[in-house]
């Protein structure tokens, strides 16, 4: 049994907790509950005949009032940067957060989840933005915590990356997770 610590990062209300709930319990609630501090959850995956337990640290969303605390990141084997496709501002925050995380953790694998795919027509994040992210070499999944679309794939991809080589550079390429 291998355990890995993963942090959920992103601006506030992008759906980090919903993604964790969808991933761990396959549930979704429309009711928004802000995360205070951090909540810890876990999910065990079987990957390549190996059992991996992901310990998910769901951190509070970053905004102008609350900045990411580096102490929460310590020891993470990987992280997910979540942003809200309907709010382009969350993309800028995600870029900032990723820099912070990379600075704190070094070159550990991470995956970008652009959430709220179920409301794609209302997105402010454009295909051009997605292309720029891909250009950076980031692995991007388009997800919906509401429908579950792309969620499993996003977490699985990160897990696989963590298991392959801890020092490996971030994954490249973009997928919508479908």
């Amino acid at each position: 049994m291998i355990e890995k610590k993963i942090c959920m990062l992103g601006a506030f209300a992008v759906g980090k907790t919903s993604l964790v709930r969808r991933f761990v319990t396959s549930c979704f609630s429309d009711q928004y509950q802000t995360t205070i501090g951090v909540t810890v959850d876990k999910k065990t995956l079987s990957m390549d005949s190996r059992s991996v337990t992901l310990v998910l640290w769901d951190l509070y969303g970053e905004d102008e009032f609350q900045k990411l605390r580096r102490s929460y990141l310590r020891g993470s084997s990987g992280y997910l940067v979540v942003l809200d496709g309907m709010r382009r501002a969350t993309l800028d925050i995600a870029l900032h957060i990723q820099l912070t995380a990379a600075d704190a953790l070094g070159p550990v694998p991470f995956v970008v989840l652009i959430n709220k795919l179920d409301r794609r027509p209302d997105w402010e994040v454009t295909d051009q933005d997605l292309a720029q992210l891909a250009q950076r070499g980031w692995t991007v999944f388009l997800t919906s915590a509401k429908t579950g679309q792309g969620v499993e794939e996003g977490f699985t991809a990160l897990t696989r990356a963590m298991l392959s080589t801890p020092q490996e550079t971030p994954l490249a390429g973009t997928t919508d997770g479908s």
Partner: protein
Amino acid sequence: MAHAPKAGTPAVDRDYAELRSLLLAPEQSRLEQLQEQVEHLDLNAHNLNRVLPEAIALRGDTDHRLTHALTPHVSEALGVSVRKQPHMIVDAIAPIMMPAIRQAIANALRSMMQSLNQTIEHSLSIRSMQWRLEALRTGKPFAEIVLLHTLRYRVEQVFLIHAQTGLLLAHAAGDAVAVQDQTLVSGMLSAIRSFVQDSFGATPDQALNTLQVGDLTVWIEQGPSAILAAVIRGTPPETFHVHLQDTLTRIHAEHFDALARFSGDAAPFAGARPLLEECLRAQFEPRRHAIAPITWIFLAAIVLATIWWGVSTFQDRQHWQAYLERLALEPGLVVTSTHSEGNRYVLTGLRDPLAADPDVLLQDSGVAVDRVEAKWSPYYALDAAFTLKRAGLVLSPPDTVRLTLEGPRLTATGTAGAEWIRQSRPLARLLPGITEYDDRHIVARSLEALIQQMAGVWILFQQGTATIQSPDQLQGVRRISELLHQLDEVARLSGVTVILEITGQTDVVGRSSRNQRLSEDRARSVLDALHPATFSAITFHARGIGPAPESSPSLGAATLPQDRRVSFQATVHPAS
């Protein structure tokens, strides 16, 4: 280019076979050999044993089919082997199993004895009754309530956590301890430590090392690579910190490489589990053999209070009985019933108005007055003393009268006025307990006394006169009249007749005839003044005797006034 001979020509076939035999004899033989080997491959164990181990290993790496295929057969073979040769299996596993079994049994017995001891110890005490009530009220098992109250401290869980990642390395929990998801607890514990450290601006070496929730305390020891967190119920001794630190140090020493290389796999830390289990300590309140001083004081107070109460009650009872005996001896008081109401006595009885006051007796008895409720009903006691006393009260005799009682006969002796004698007669007969009243003596004595009194009264006259006009004469007449009225009434009450002799006298001066007449006049004057008709029981005789024989004889000398007197002499005669 060679062509094959056509079939059906025997000569050609034979030649061809011969040629083939000549050209390919060694290869032919080898081919036939190989063909035979291939056809009989499953029977050739000699060939198979050379590749079997590698083949199994190779297949096992590929997938689990070999395992699945072999599992039922291995299980069956094991079963058969155990049935046929059980001793072999026993011999094989005994060295492994026996220590584990012994430890499991010892643990189970220890837990059971501990539980049993505590249950027995607390099953009969007052405290245990309170705990049973608490168990009923809260719905918790009694054993748990006992544990909660007698536990000084118990280390319920110990977490070994990787310092950097917050991931769980090893965990140990006590028996019957509710264990949450250890991975999450480990993660949250790390998160809380980070939160506290960041929020309150602590330096890296100042970490959260104690959490307290209700009666649960979490002690956290920080090491270079790992954290040891102990969940403790109750209040542990400070020395337990030292034990935790020693354990963490030892773990760091024994698992230095594993901690340094940790990348999520906690398997290398399984060896640390016994060290963690050594931290699962518990201490219960020592059994109290000695009784607390306050208990002794309390018991002594109860004993003293009981003795005081007993003595008081006994004395009180004694006083009460003495009071009742005193009442029984007291004439004119009759106790008809007594009973107790709480700490009060209720008494009912009869009381003669002339009897002693029971309240006064009660005050002298030693019984608290406010504890007695007495209901006395009035009655007449017929004892001689009470009858006599009552007679004295009712008749109110003058001091000259003495009343005596002989059975139902009341006797009055002495002297008394006619009025009292007259009034006392009907009253005496109405008195309860008296059927006969004798006042003859008093009547006789009263008559005598009156007669004597009358004999002592003289009415004096001036020389030569027989008229009554001076104040002294008038007073003497009134005095005699009063006595006569009493005498008349007493005589009538006693049924006798009184003859009153009124005797007039003169001095020696003058002629004797004249003195005789003058003395008779004087007697008649007095008789007239007395109105004899008003006295029915008295007969009056007036007479003159001239100069009394004892009168002063001296001629020419002054005569004495008493020589010129009228005197009275009464005699009693039975009624005719």
